């Protein structure tokens, strides 16, 4: 995918100017920057920061000011990340040799979008000029400011005397892919809101910008619906294992303040067992010969009540979740229950579908798509929906998740003109012994047969942490820093591929995450300077 706006020749020129102050010979010349920005120019000239004097503020020419909550919150947050764990006391006046960096001025160039929600086209680019006494962070929108603040905070380190230090530098940055997501699964195991918020914090540290909330599934329905309260009353693990409307609002705003979109997934017609507990006649009753077996299958696609329910339900979802996109699922639909049901058999005959149940699945999904268009939302679906020849409207995003020959699938989907999200090589729930982050890092999302136009249809990818074996006890160490590898792959340039250099930066980044309260697990033998505080 081509970078927007930043030409390759300039980039090469900047790289040639690199000269860097490194504390140890085994450190990367890019210190602990993660993900690696598009272009980094560092000089050996050092500036120091004083926690008492340094502050972040709005440049007078900025289109954003103190009324911009998203930036005010960010300024406070990043001040804390930079200086927070440091206990200082008012000492003697400046007597230090190195010049001081007194201020970071933030300048938003275009209409800030301060009160808006981020979307797939949001401009996240920024430039950062670190020079004494005032550094300048310039961005077109607030989203770029958020990314730039994170990078700025990653440039600061403490020397052996504890002095906050930063190298004079010039950074120009923007993401390679616009959709960089993390999938969490709150149906197989309930995740407390605190855990979700912590995940959003960590996502911001890694420049992820989409939270794919796989909120319900077979096992439980924790989403408290206002229109259909029985769904969670009967479908959740317990009445305390629910997300109230307020919980959802908290998550969405917390995400927005970090430039992160929240895309909910209400997976149908399969993966919907829990929906049947609180919504009678929604699921297909399975048959044993001529009698009902007592078990239920996917959503019943032949009843009008199904579609009036879905219409009302997704209407609510479209008002609760502000993102333009809703993930409709559509994966792993098992046909046996449909096959066994006599009413469905009749319906198949009437429609002339024969015994091809894929046609019935298509029939269902098409009606669902119609509902979604009526409410003016976009759809994301798992690849089966494409594979089973559903007529997709242009713009429907296909998420490629099946590992076998996923590159071919990418070719197929983009050849038909549909945008693709890549997840297949990034199922982080598949743990194994050793440094598996390297294999996630080595994935090249555009490594498939296709024209350059096709390649532009890959809008990004998502690291998936399915919840069968994951809950609040082990989510954070399992996600981080392994997902960080995916984060860099989706943000940084295609040629940023050295896993040796990545290792050096990622170990620093990991210790920083731990310092900031995210229990990211170790990459390998070693230590962080502040391990006691873990």
């Amino acid at each position, binding site marked *: 995918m081509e970078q927007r706006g930043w030409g390759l020749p300039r980039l090469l020129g900047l790289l040639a100017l690199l000269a860097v102050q490194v504390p140890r010979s085994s450190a990367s010349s890019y210190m602990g920057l993660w993900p690696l920005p598009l272009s980094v120019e560092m000089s050996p000239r050092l500036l120091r920061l004083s926690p008492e004097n340094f502050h972040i503020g709005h440049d007078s020419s900025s289109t954003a000011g103190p009324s911009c909550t998203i930036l005010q919150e960010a300024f406070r947050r990043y001040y804390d990340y930079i200086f927070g764990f440091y206990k200082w006391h008012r000492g003697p006046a400046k007597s230090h040799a190195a010049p001081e960096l007194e201020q970071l001025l933030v300048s938003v160039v275009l209409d800030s979008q301060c009160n808006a929600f981020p979307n797939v086209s949001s401009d996240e680019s920024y430039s950062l000029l670190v020079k004494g006494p005032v550094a300048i962070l310039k961005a077109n929108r607030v989203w770029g400011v958020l990314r730039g603040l994170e990078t700025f905070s990653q440039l600061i380190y403490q020397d052996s005397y504890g002095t906050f230090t930063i190298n004079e530098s010039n950074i120009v940055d923007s993401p390679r892919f616009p959709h960089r997501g993390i999938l969490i699964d709150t149906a*197989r*195991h*309930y995740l*407390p809101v*605190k*855990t979700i918020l*912590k995940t959003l914090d960590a996502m911001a540290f890694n420049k992820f910008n989409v939270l794919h909330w796989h909120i319900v599934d077979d*096992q*439980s329905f924790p989403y408290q619906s206002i229109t259909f309260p029985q769904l969670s009353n009967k479908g959740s*693990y*317990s009445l*305390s*294992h629910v997300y109230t409307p307020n919980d959802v609002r908290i998550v969405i705003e917390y995400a927005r303040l970090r430039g992160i979109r929240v895309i909910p997934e209400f997976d149908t017609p399969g993966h919907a067992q829990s929906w049947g507990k609180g919504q009678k006649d929604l699921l297909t009753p399975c048959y044993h010969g001529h009698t009902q077996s007592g078990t239920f299958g996917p959503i019943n696609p032949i009843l009008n009540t199904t579609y009036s329910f879905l219409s009302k339900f997704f209407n609510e979802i479209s008002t609760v979740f502000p993102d333009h996109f809703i993930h409709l699922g559509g994966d792993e639909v098992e046909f046996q229950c449909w096959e066994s049901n006599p009413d469905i058999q009749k319906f198949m005959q009437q429609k002339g579908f024969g015994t091809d149940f894929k046609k019935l699945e298509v029939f269902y999904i098409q009606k669902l798509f119609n509902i979604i268009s009526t409410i003016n939302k976009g759809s994301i679906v798992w690849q089966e929906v494409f594979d089973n020849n559903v007529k997709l409207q242009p713009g429907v995003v296909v998420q490629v998740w099946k590992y076998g020959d996923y590159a071919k699938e990418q070719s197929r989907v983009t050849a038909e003109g549909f945008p693709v999200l890549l997840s297949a090589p990034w199922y982080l*729930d*598949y*743990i*194994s*012994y*050793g*440094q598996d982050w390297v294999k996630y890092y080595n994935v090249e999302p555009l490594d498939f047969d296709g024209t350059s136009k096709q390649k532009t249809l890959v809008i990004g990818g998502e690291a998936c942490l399915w*919840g*069968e*074996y*994951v*809950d*609040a*006890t*082990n989510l*954070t*160490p*399992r996600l981080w820093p392994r997902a960080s590898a995916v984060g860099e792959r989706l943000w940084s340039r295609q040629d940023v591929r050295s896993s040796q250099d990545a290792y050096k930066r990622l170990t620093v980044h990991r210790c920083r995450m*731990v310092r900031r309260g995210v*229990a*990211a*697990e*170790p*990459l*390998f*033998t*070693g*230590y962080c*300077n502040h*391990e*006691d505080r*873990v």
Partner: protein
Amino acid sequence: MRKKQHTLEINSLVIHVATPGCDQLPSLESAENYTLTINDEQNFLFSETVWGALRGLETFSQLVWRSPEGTFFINKTEIEDFPRFPHRGLLLDTSRHYLPLSSILNTLDVMAYSKFNVFHWHMVDDPSFPYESFTFPELTRKGSYNPATHIYTAQDVKEVIEYARLRGIRVLVEFDTPGHTQSWGPGAPGLLTPCYSGSQPSGTFGPVNPILNSTYEFMSTFFLEVSSVFPDFYLHLGGDEVDFSCWKSNPDIQDFMKKKGFGNDFKKLESFYIQTLLDIVSAYGKGYVVWQEVFDNKVKVRPDTIIQVWREEAPVSYMKELELVTNASFRALLSAPWYLNHITYGPDWEKVYMVEPLAFDGTPEQKALVIGGEACMWGEYVDSTNLVPRLWPRAGAVAERLWSSKLVTNLDFASKRLADFRCELLRRGIQAQPLNVGYCEQEFEET
């Protein structure tokens, strides 16, 4: 006719310990049996020793349940219990990653919940030397990751030993030599073998130098300290994965080999070192545990040596190794199939659970020589960010295999109980990870 709910209010559990003595340390020979009688007449816990009482109290606490209304209940119960194996251990590695004291103490808590009774403390290794030695403080100063923060002081060690004792847990410390000793080098110049590149020293160092008297003087003094600091009868002396290439390269060692008539067999040199070390340690009145290489390499060890079997397939399958070790009349500890640091996707606790430690060819006398086993949590990829969920509840599968009867093997039965145990761990504030899809009434909340 409705059966009337017959509940009695219980206000005390009476404990009767037959043998006096509360202030000693647990040992390999400690009796841990107990009986628990809960009925209309009495709530009675009987045990031979205080150690049995601790085990019985844990069981008692697992019998108490709460109704939906919140009332605490216990069913009438008769339990007779004793462990199948006397050595049920857990290994933590504090060298690859430093573990804060709180992590170690927390682990001891959960070990007590699972009736583990040996904490195998793999204290030092190649990457770091966190043990604060008072005879050789330079070892710690030069060998730890950070001598101010990443160390275990004498006070820390005392605290661990007493915390463990109060839970009936022995502390088996391991100072692994002659390999796995890189971190000893900076603080003890001359201890490690200088490797050679041709006729010149290469600048790197290998295992402990076995040909110098100074080595044995050092070990003598060092293990005098260790013997006094760690009160358990046993010390673990390591002896695993000794890489011979550095010894081979060293001309002084080559000379020594010739003089001793060892030829080219460096196993004989390793043997020479270990034997001398074992003599030193025995003189301090200690017994020892070693890794299986010491046995495999035919080191002449005393008959009361305990061999820890850790290699899954080479030189032989671990079952075969158990057969060989016990056939040679040595006591054995099983660890090979219980390397909990080897994570995989899915319910891997099942494989751990289904191991039968005595499934090898041997006489009953031989089988009696298998005194137990240890779940190992090596530290290459583990520190306090992920230790607890990676250890629990998976280690619980090993705990049951080592405590319960050989006949307790039904996976469905175990699955249900282990899932309940996991929720109980959450209730006790332990960050134990889930076994499978589902929920606990009280979920873990991050701080």
